[in-house]
């Protein structure tokens, strides 16, 4: 088994600040400085976000690639979160293989009275490239941002558009690759 964040308190505060930065500026690439050696197939950014956000209050759904015994053991040891086999029952979803991911509509999108009870999807992708790709607009974006995501299925951007259309319901997506994260919250409009 591998250790978690080197300094559980300060590192998770730094990572949380970065997640906040990414979520309030959708499409912006944010570097995570935390030094961490997670079990494969998790990338450092994916693992740091998991260790920062998951705890005993957050049921986690894992895709087939993430549900390896080493990953499950490591996450349970460091976060102590319950696991769920039902995507719709999860507070957080961790997708390590974005190519075979289920549609974003499979996850809990909250209720009209309590949209905040929806799921957050941590989606590990092949690469995140800023300044090119899809046109993103909405709260937190001055004019528009561009974000290209490598390794997502063909339907991903239409799922993201549907996710925005359900506002205030919908899920928030945290994209991660290597040591970088970017957010695609439900408030963000996806163009061409």
């Amino acid at each position, binding site marked *: *088994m*591998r*250790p*978690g964040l080197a300094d*559980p308190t300060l590192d998770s505060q730094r990572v949380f600040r970065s997640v906040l930065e990414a979520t309030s500026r959708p499409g912006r690439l944010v570097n995570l400085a935390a030094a961490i050696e997670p079990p494969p197939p998790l990338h450092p950014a994916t693992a740091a976000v998991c260790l920062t956000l998951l705890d005993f209050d957050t049921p986690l759904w894992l895709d087939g690639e993430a549900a390896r015994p080493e990953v499950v053991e490591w996450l349970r*040891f*460091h976060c102590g979160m319950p696991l769920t086999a039902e995507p719709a029952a999860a507070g957080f979803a961790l997708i390590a293989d974005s190519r075979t991911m289920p549609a974003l509509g499979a996850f809990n999108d909250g209720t009209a009275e309590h949209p905040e009870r929806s799921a957050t999807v941590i989606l590990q992708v092949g690469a995140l490239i800023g300044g090119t790709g899809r046109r993103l607009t909405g709260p937190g974006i001055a004019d528009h941002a561009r974000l290209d995501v490598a390794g997502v299925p063909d339907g991903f951007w239409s799922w993201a558009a549907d996710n925005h259309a359900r506002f205030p319901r919908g899920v928030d997506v945290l994209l991660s690759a290597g040591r970088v994260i970017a957010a695609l919250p439900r408030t963000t409009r996806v163009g061409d």
Partner: protein
Amino acid sequence: MGPTDARRRWMSVLAQASPAELEARWHDVEASPPHRVLRAPETGLVMVRARAGGTGMRFNVGEVTVTRCAVELEGGAVGVAYIRGRDRRHAELAALLDALLQDAARRDALERTVVAPLAAAQTARRRAAAERVAPSRVEFFTMVRGDD
């Protein structure tokens, strides 16, 4: 006694040992084995719950300060310790010994040189405390009132 029971027993002995005794016994063990720290000693609060008798409602007695630590030896054995109080060194030593005790080749020697003496010391302390308070015990009984 299954392996889980055995481990539960030595973890309990290590957690309840006095830090000074544990440190002294640790010096009898060979130099600190190569290991890495999975969870550095950290202190937090645990809510202790109890029942007033077998049929009583569960209630919160209060919070107790607990320090926990987890280490992994080179062979992959993971040692875990939860101790009452905030002695980080105590938690670390207890976790290291828990990991070493899982190695069947070393268990007997460690049981003899570390766990058994610590357990004996704890039993003696408990008995001394019981003997100290025994003279002040009050036996209650009910007087039966005769008919007329």
